[in-house]
C-alpha cells in the first residue's frame, strides 16, 4: 500500500531521494500509475503552487519540489506511456518575439507540468511561426510571456493571428495585466506561475 501522504510530503519538501524510493516501491507493488500521480505527486505540486501564490513558498522551494517530482516522473514515464494515460491537455509556453527573458516562462512550464499538463516549451523570441508549429503539434493553449513593455504588442499580434480558431491564448509577464489581456482579446491572464495553471485549468474545463 503506497503512503500517498508521505509521497506528497517528499515532493513538497523537495526530497528527491524519498520521492524516488516511494515511487519505486509503489511500482514494485504494482500500484496504479494514475494513483501515484493523481493522489501523490500532482496534488503536492499544486499545493506548492498555492503556497507560492500566498508567498509561503518562494522560487527555491518551487524548484526543488519540481526537481523531486521529476525524479519520480523519470521512473514512471515508461509505465505512463504503456498505460495510455492521457495528460490533462497540451499547452505551449513561449516568450514572445523580441524578448529573451526566460525565468518567468520556465516557472510557468514547471508549474503546468507539475499540475499534470503536457508542456511544449517553445523557448524565447517566439514568432507566430513557432506558435503555429506548437498548434500543429497539438497544443490547445498557447501561453505567451513578455517582460518588456516594448514586446507586449507582439502578444496582440499572436491573439489576432489565431482569432477565430479553436486554440486559446493566455498571456503573462511583468508588465502584463488583466486589463491588457482584455484589451487585446486574450482568453486569459496569469498573474504568476500558479495563476497560469488556474487559468489553464479553467479553459480546459470550459472546452
Amino acid at each position, binding site marked *: 500500500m503506497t503512503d500517498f501522504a508521505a509521497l506528497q510530503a517528499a515532493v513538497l519538501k*523537495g526530497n528527491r531521494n524519498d520521492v524516488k524510493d516511494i515511487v519505486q516501491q509503489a511500482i514494485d507493488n504494482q500500484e496504479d500509475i494514475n494513483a501515484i500521480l493523481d493522489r501523490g505527486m500532482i496534488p503536492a505540486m499544486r499545493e506548492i503552487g498555492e503556497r*507560492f501564490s500566498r*508567498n509561503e513558498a*518562494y*522560487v*527555491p*522551494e518551487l*524548484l*526543488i519540489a519540481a*526537481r523531486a517530482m521529476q525524479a519520480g516522473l523519470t521512473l514512471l514515464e515508461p509505465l505512463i506511456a504503456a498505460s495510455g494515460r492521457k495528460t490533462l491537455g497540451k499547452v505551449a509556453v513561449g516568450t514572445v518575439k*523580441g*524578448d*529573451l*527573458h*526566460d*525565468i*518567468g516562462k*520556465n516557472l510557468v512550464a514547471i508549474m503546468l507540468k507539475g499540475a499534470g499538463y503536457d508542456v511544449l516549451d517553445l*523557448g*524565447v*523570441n517566439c514568432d507566430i511561426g513557432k506558435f503555429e508549429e506548437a498548434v500543429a503539434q497539438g497544443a490547445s493553449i498557447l501561453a505567451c510571456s513578455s*517582460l*518588456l*513593455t*516594448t514586446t507586449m504588442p507582439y502578444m496582440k499580434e499572436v491573439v489576432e493571428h489565431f482569432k477565430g480558431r479553436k486554440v486559446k491564448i493566455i498571456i503573462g*509577464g*511583468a*508588465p502584463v495585466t488583466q486589463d491588457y489581456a482584455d484589451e487585446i482579446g486574450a482568453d486569459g491572464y496569469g*498573474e*504568476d506561475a500558479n495563476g497560469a495553471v488556474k487559468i489553464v485549468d479553467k479553459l480546459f474545463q470550459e472546452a
Partner: protein
Amino acid sequence: MSELTGKERISRQLKHLPVDRIGVFEAFWQYTMRNWENQGKVPPNACPVEHFGLDMLLCEPCNMRIHPQAQDQVISEDEDTVTLLDGNGATLRRHKKHDTTPEHVDFSIKERKQWLELAKPFLTADTATRLNREAYRKARQRAAEKGLFFCWVGVNVFELMHPICGHENMLLGMALDPEWIEDMVNTYSELILQLQQELFAAEGPPDGIWYWDDMGFRGRPFMSPDMYRELIMPAHRKTIDYAHSLGLPVIMHSCGFIEPLLPYMVEAGIDALQAIEIKAGMDLLRIDKQFGEKIALIGGLDARPIANNDLPGITRELESKIPIVKKNRGFIMHSDHSIPESTEYETYLYFKETGLKLGTY
C-alpha cells in the same frame, strides 16, 4: 535656499537634510540616447548626466568576471540576437537592440564542485586586470569639476552569483546546498572589499557607493526573507559596514518586488533604495510611509506613461506622488526603472521639468 550643487543636494538628501529641490537621476536605454542622437536632439556621444543636468555621476570600475580579460566569444548570431560565451563561462543570448536580461542558454558552473574548480581559484584581487583606475580617476575628477555626487558602482553578491551559474542553479543551491552559496557570497564580498580598498587608497574615495542587486521579480522576491537573512544579508551588512566606516552612504538598487526583504535591507544598513519598480508590485507611497524616514528613496515613478509619451499620464503620476514623498526630504527623482527607446526626447524633458517643479521646496 540658494541653489545647491548635485553633490551637496544628494549628500544632504541621503541624510534627510533640507535641500533646494529634490535630486534627479535617470537611466536610459542605449537605444533611447541613440534615437535622440539620430534625431539631432542630443549631440553625438552625449553624457546624459551633463546633457540633462542630472545630479549624480556613476562609475563602475571593477571587473568581477571569473576571467576578467576573457573576450566574449560569439557562438552564433541572427538578425536580432547574438549568443556569446562570456568570461564567466556562461552562454548567453542577447538581443541586439535591448539592454535587458539575456536568455540563459547554459552555464559551465551548475553546482559546488564546478564552482570550486572553475571559479573560486580565479576570483582573486588581481587589481591590474580587475580595476579600471583610469576610468574611475577621470569620472571622479569630472564629477568634482561639475559639482556632481560621484558614486562607485558595482554589483553585490546576489547579482554576482547568478551570472556564473544561472538563477535556477543558484536558487536550487540556496535550498539544497547553502554552504556552497555561503562560500560564493563570502568570496565575492571579500573581493568587492579588497578591490574597493585598493582603489580608494590609490585614487581617493567616491561620495557614495551604489550597489546593483536585483533580488525580486513580479510580485515576490526570488527568495524568502529568512533565506535572505541567512545567506545574503551577511554580505550586504559587511559591504555596507565597510562603506560606512569610510563615511560613505550606500544606495542599493534592487529590481522586482523586494518589499518583504526591505526591513532586513534597512537593518543591513542601506541608506537609499533605488528603482522601486511599480510593474513588479512596488508602491512608492506605501514604501515612503513605512521606510521614508529611515532611508532615502530613488525612483518609483511609473515609466509606462513615459514610454507611451502620455503627458497627462506623466502629470498625474508626478502630481500624485512627488508632493507627498518630498516631505521626508530623501526622495530623488527617477523613473521606476529606466527610459525605454519609445520615449520621445520632449517627453523626458517634460517628465524631468514637471517633476522638479513639483519637487522644489
